[in-house]
Every structure is written in structure tokens, then in C-alpha cells.
């Protein structure tokens, strides 16, 4: 049997295995009017020139179209996200990756202060430059669930400084969430779970 036929079969099988994976689409939806598209293109180009990640901006536009938001609202959302991305990049430093910046922007949106992000970066810098994406995701989640942002930032910062792994940070988030659903106050849940995690790491 020819090698070509074998290769053909292998390529077909591989395409089945990768079904679902999609590249990010960096085009603006055709449902938007031409003036809105032009405005968004200018915004996104400015973000690109500033070195900000633009995939979250395209995603925000598509989310707005999916949710049938009116066009000014889509533009406003993209403007706000661009601002948050810029603030997050400033707070996290030039070495921050695109995922970190996007997660940082989300944390700012949740009520965190840029100084909280900078402190987190300093803790990270004292470690091994491990990406802060998960820590920032956890931080944003806690803040949206009613945990006071400053408290959430202090706890997560302490855990990051103690080299807590990403997996443990996510478990920490789930445990706090479980306590909140069970009726515990946010401050109490956060305090108890932070102490428990620190105690677990003591030799």
C-alpha cells in the first residue's frame, strides 16, 4: 500500500483528534455597521500599537454581538477593556504575558486596585517568575463573590509568596466558595481557608 495513502489516512484521523480546537479569529463580525467596525478597528489598532493583547478585545466584540448588545455598548465595552488592559500591564510590569494582562484587567474590573496587582508581581518576582494568571483569576473570582478586594488581595498575595501551586490556589478558591454558599461570611471564610492552606504547608 502506498505511503501516500497511509499519510492521507493518518491526516484524516488526526483531524478527528483535533476537532474543537479553533484559532482565534481576528476579524470583526459583519453584523456590525461599517462606522462601528471602523471605530473598533481604530481602538484595537491602538491597543496593538501599545503592545496590549488584542484577542480579549476581539472576543469582547464577539460576545457583544452574540448577546445582541447595541453597537455603542459594544464600543464602550471595548474601550473600557482596553483601559483595563493598559492599567493591568502597567501594574504587572513589562514582563507580563498576554494571559496575565487579561486576567489582571479582569481583576481590576472586579474591584482590585492596581497596587494590589503590583504587590502580587513583587511576590512573584521573588519566586521564579511563575505566571500570575491563576492567582489573578482566583482574585477576581473572590472579589465578585463578595470578598472585600483588599482582603482577597492580601490572602492571595500571601499564598503566592509561599509558593502555593496553581492547583492549590484553585482548590483554595473552591473551598472559599463552598463556605460562602454554606452561609459563612466572606471575611471569615477567607481567613479560615488561608490559614488552613498555610498550615498545610508547614513541615
Amino acid at each position, binding site marked *: 500500500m502506498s505511503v501516500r495513502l497511509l499519510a492521507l489516512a493518518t491526516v484524516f*484521523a488526526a483531524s478527528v483528534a483535533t476537532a*474543537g480546537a479553533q484559532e482565534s479569529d481576528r476579524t470583526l463580525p459583519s453584523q456590525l455597521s461599517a462606522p462601528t467596525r471602523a471605530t473598533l478597528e481604530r481602538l484595537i489598532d491602538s491597543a496593538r500599537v501599545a503592545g496590549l493583547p488584542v484577542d480579549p478585545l476581539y472576543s*469582547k466584540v464577539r460576545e457583544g454581538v452574540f448577546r445582541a448588545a447595541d453597537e455603542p455598548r459594544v464600543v464602550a465595552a471595548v474601550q473600557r477593556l482596553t483601559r483595563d488592559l493598559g492599567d493591568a500591564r502597567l501594574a504587572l510590569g513589562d514582563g507580563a504575558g498576554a494571559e496575565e494582562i487579561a486576567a489582571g484587567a*479582569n481583576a481590576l474590573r472586579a474591584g482590585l486596585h492596581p497596587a494590589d496587582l503590583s504587590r502580587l508581581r513583587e511576590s512573584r518576582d521573588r519566586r521564579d517568575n511563575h505566571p500570575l494568571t491563576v492567582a489573578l483569576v482566583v482574585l477576581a473570582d473572590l472579589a465578585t463573590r463578595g470578598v472585600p478586594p483588599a482582603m482577597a488581595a492580601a490572602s492571595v498575595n500571601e499564598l503566592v509568596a509561599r509558593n502555593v501551586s496553581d492547583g492549590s490556589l484553585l482548590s483554595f478558591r473552591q473551598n472559599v*466558595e463552598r463556605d460562602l*454558599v454554606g452561609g459563612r461570611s466572606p471575611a471569615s471564610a477567607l481567613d479560615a481557608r488561608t490559614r488552613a492552606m498555610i498550615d498545610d504547608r508547614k513541615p
Partner: protein
Amino acid sequence: MSGPDEPRWLDEIAGELRREVPVRPAWRARLLDEVARAPKPAVRREIDETFDDRGEDALDTARRRWSLTVGPLGSLAAAMMLVALGAGATYVAMSRLGANASQRSAQTSAPAPSHLVSSAPVSAEREIVRFEIAAPRASHVALVGSFNEWDPGATPLSRDPATGKWVVSLRLPPGRHVYAFVVDGDVTADPSAPRAADEDFGSPNSVVFVSSPRV
């Protein structure tokens, strides 16, 4: 080495090709092209050299025993078997990985409203992520997010008959992905996944983080 049998061998192939077989025209054309260009099989050539001096009877016996002539139908069958093997292996791998992610979520997920219970991925060490949500009265559930351009038609969930939950497994690139479920047209965040604080359009989204493969 080319022997006196070669014309007969070509005749056999030609005869095989003239037979009507249910093959797509494009595949048939490719097969014809491959067969026309195929050299005499290496194994057969080796046999010819080995038995060159032993007489026609011994040569014929050896050829009958060792010859590796594969017709178009044989090639097609082998190709189909390979495809089926690849698809089967993929299904098994996705099932196993998906089950692991689901088990990890189920152990740690928080209690959620009884009408909408999700055991969604909070994190997955691997790239295949299983999303699931319990929406017993729903007739259609889909997944939208940054990974499918927020296209509600791109990633429908199917109901798992064993658990009654709506499930889908996706291969996602490492990174942070924002998503939501669409349950009978209503957009809803995943109750047991981290929330994204980006309610620009009315309702919150969820976040899944796929870590980079360990090196």
C-alpha cells in the same frame, strides 16, 4: 529484477482496476494513480532473486506464499481501518481524560442551585476539557466563549444518558478562556467555575484555565 511474469502481473492489476467497485471518484482516481506508479513489490523482487535458479515450480510456490500484491480494494480497506483505528483511539483518549476532569470537579465543586447544577472544569492539566451542566428540563444546551468566537451553534452539548447531564469535551489551548452556557436560549454562567468580572452585557461569564503541558 524484472521477470517474464511481469506482463501477467500487470494484466491482473489492470483486470482488477476494470472491475466496478463502490469507491468515490476522487479516491478511485487517486488509487488508479498510485497503482499505475507503484513499482513491483520489494518482497516479491527479493523472492525472485532468491529462487531464480530453482525452477518455475519452486518459484511459483514461493510467490503464492510470499507475494504482497495489494489491489485497490485492499488499499482502501487498509486506509479505512487506519482511520477507524485513529478515530477509536481518539474517542477512548477523550473519554478517559474527560472522565478524569469530571471526577476532579465533582470532588471539589460547591453546592449549586438544584435547578442548575454544574460540575465544570476549574482547571485542567491537559488540553482536553470536559464541560458539563445539569439542566434537566432543558431541550438544548450550547457552550459559547472566547474559544469558539461566541458562536452558539459551534459547540452544542449532548445529554449523557447515564447521568442526565449535558456534556461536551473540547480540546482547548493553554490559557485563560471566558465562557458561558446557553440553556434554551438563556445565557448563564457556570455555577461552580470561577467568575469573570466582566458583566458588560448583562450576565456574568465563567473562566476556565488550561495550564501549559508540563515539560
